[in-house]
């Protein structure tokens, strides 16, 4: 009888930290404590090496050359597309469009899909906790088409008001564009329910997955989402590269966004026909090393297991919430029951900017400000918060350093 030994993978954060060279840097003579992964994550050696390897051994322009290196670079880039497809469980590799980042992905959909499908009086549903990148592109297309934005409110804890969402849905609704995880509050939105309600009326849904992709397993087919965007640099890959997922039937019906090379079939001055998906939306020479680097980032995540990463981060979120809540003058902003990786808070009498400066001198990198989400700051009647966002390499000890740093803030401000 064969004995199958199943070794449950465990997440060893100290070993993970060894993979990130920057984490051994010092800041003002103190160990770096990096709590700004929500803005941009640090890069593991595997990603740094993958990018170097591209330029050292396999770099040339893609999809056009007959020569050896061009083919090698093309193969590496298309292998990365398959890595992305599997990562989000898209049905078809042609549904994976490389863009500069989530921002470009949303602009692409708003512009290309919007020009074709929106007219005066049509409604686009967003939430009040959207990042500016999921507000402004829709405002731009609304200005051009006469469409109107409708905003789903949140409750005081930062949870999406699903009754209001259902009420906003009408015959005029043409698109729902909502965040999967709020970058300012950490709220995980009930995306299955959002999509179900929209699809009952035949309305497509775009999800901004920037803050979700690093922290939870994604499944485009199970979600049945119409468009999904995320950025490479938040999933431990390079900046300047991201992904737009779209259902092929929607993408096929949409006009190109940018015109140029690589997105064409035949060009004459009379008429140009366009390439098939995904190239129709990938005009110009792509960010070749970025794509390959992003693929390496995803493979690194896969090696650790996103479930293991999520469990580790959830432990830190709970530990951090408990520790921070012990501080008297501290108020958490965003306490929804379903949250991921974000500790956003304010101190009663010290402005977030002053807190950020003092923490910086302790070697602690946090983000202070409105987090490109001014409407949700207005919702809480605050200008800014202090945001500690958690990545796979953070530790409980670092939470303790953060809490001690906040002690120094109170000391300096005489509290």
């Amino acid at each position, binding site marked *: 009888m064969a004995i199958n030994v199943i070794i449950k993978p465990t997440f060893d954060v100290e070993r993970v930290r060894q993979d990130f060279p920057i984490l051994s840097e010092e800041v*003002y003579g103190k160990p770096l404590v990096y709590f700004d992964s929500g803005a941009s994550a640090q890069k593991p050696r595997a990603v740094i090496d993958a990018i170097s390897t591209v330029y050292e051994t396999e770099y040339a322009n893609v999809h056009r050359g007959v020569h050896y290196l061009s083919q090698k670079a093309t193969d590496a880039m298309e292998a990365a597309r398959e890595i992305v497809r599997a990562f989000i469980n898209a049905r078809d590799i042609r549904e994976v469009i490389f863009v500069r980042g989530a921002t470009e992905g949303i602009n692409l959909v708003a512009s290309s899909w919007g020009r074709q499908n929106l007219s005066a009086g049509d409604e686009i549903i967003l939430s009040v906790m959207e990042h500016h990148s999921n507000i402004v592109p829709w405002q731009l297309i609304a200005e051009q088409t006469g469409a109107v934005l409708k905003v789903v409110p949140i409750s005081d804890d930062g949870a999406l008001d699903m009754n209001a969402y259902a009420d906003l849905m009408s015959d005029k609704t043409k698109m729902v564009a909502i965040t999967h995880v709020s970058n300012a509050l950490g709220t995980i939105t009930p995306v299955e329910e959002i999509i179900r309600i929209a699809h009952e009326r035949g309305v497509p849904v775009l999800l901004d997955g920037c803050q979700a992709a690093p922290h939870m397993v994604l499944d485009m087919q199970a979600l049945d989402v119409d468009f999904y965007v995320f950025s490479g640099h938040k999933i431990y890959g390079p900046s300047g590269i991201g992904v737009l997922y779209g259902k092929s039937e929607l993408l096929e019906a949409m006009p190109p966004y940018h015109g140029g090379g690589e997105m064409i079939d035949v060009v004459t001055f009379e008429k140009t026909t366009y390439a098939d998906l995904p190239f129709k939306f990938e005009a110009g020479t792509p960010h070749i090393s970025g794509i390959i680097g992003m693929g390496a980032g995803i493979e690194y995540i896969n090696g650790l297991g996103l479930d293991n990463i999520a469990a580790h981060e959830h432990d830190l979120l709970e530990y951090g919430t408990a520790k921070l809540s012990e501080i008297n003058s501290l108020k958490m902003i965003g306490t929804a029951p379903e949250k991921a990786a974000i500790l956003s808070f304010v101190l009663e*009498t*010290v*402005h*977030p*900017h*002053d807190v950020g*400066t*003092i923490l910086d*001198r302790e070697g602690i990198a946090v983000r*202070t*400000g*409105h987090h490109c989400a*001014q409407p949700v*700051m207005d919702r809480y009647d605050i*200008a*800014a918060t202090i945001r500690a966002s958690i990545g796979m390499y953070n530790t409980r000890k670092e939470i303790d350093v953060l809490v001690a740093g906040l002690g*120094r803030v109170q000391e*300096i*401000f*005489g509290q």
Partner: protein
Amino acid sequence: MNDGLTDLYQEVILDHSRNPRNFGPAEEADRTARGNNPLCGDRVTVFLNLDGDEISDAQFDARGCAISLASASMMTEMIKGKSVAEAKALFEKFHALVTGKNGVGASPDLAELETLSGVKNFPTRIKCATLAWHAMVAALDGADEDVKTE
């Protein structure tokens, strides 16, 4: 521990930020200008009254960090009674102070503003210190548009 923080957050600065002078919207002002820091969402409005060429009254309303509030508070105290040219010249000196371009030695004109010299060691905070001043100059120049630090 000398990491610049105790220079940056001197007691006089904390006092101005907790109890800003000349604070609150003015009911009537000859000149008004708003400053906006899109980076952090901080806002300041400066209200000036002019008697001929002299700034007879200065007030401000703001939401912001300790540095921006203290700077605005001190500014309103300092420019009262000054001519338009003197107020602008004071900003030049103050700007040099917080950007570390004033060389060695203090300028007696700066008086209490000297306490903000620690800002020069925190480049990301220079805009906090100068926001109200930019708005003040815009108000004097009668600019219609909001002043931005970006």
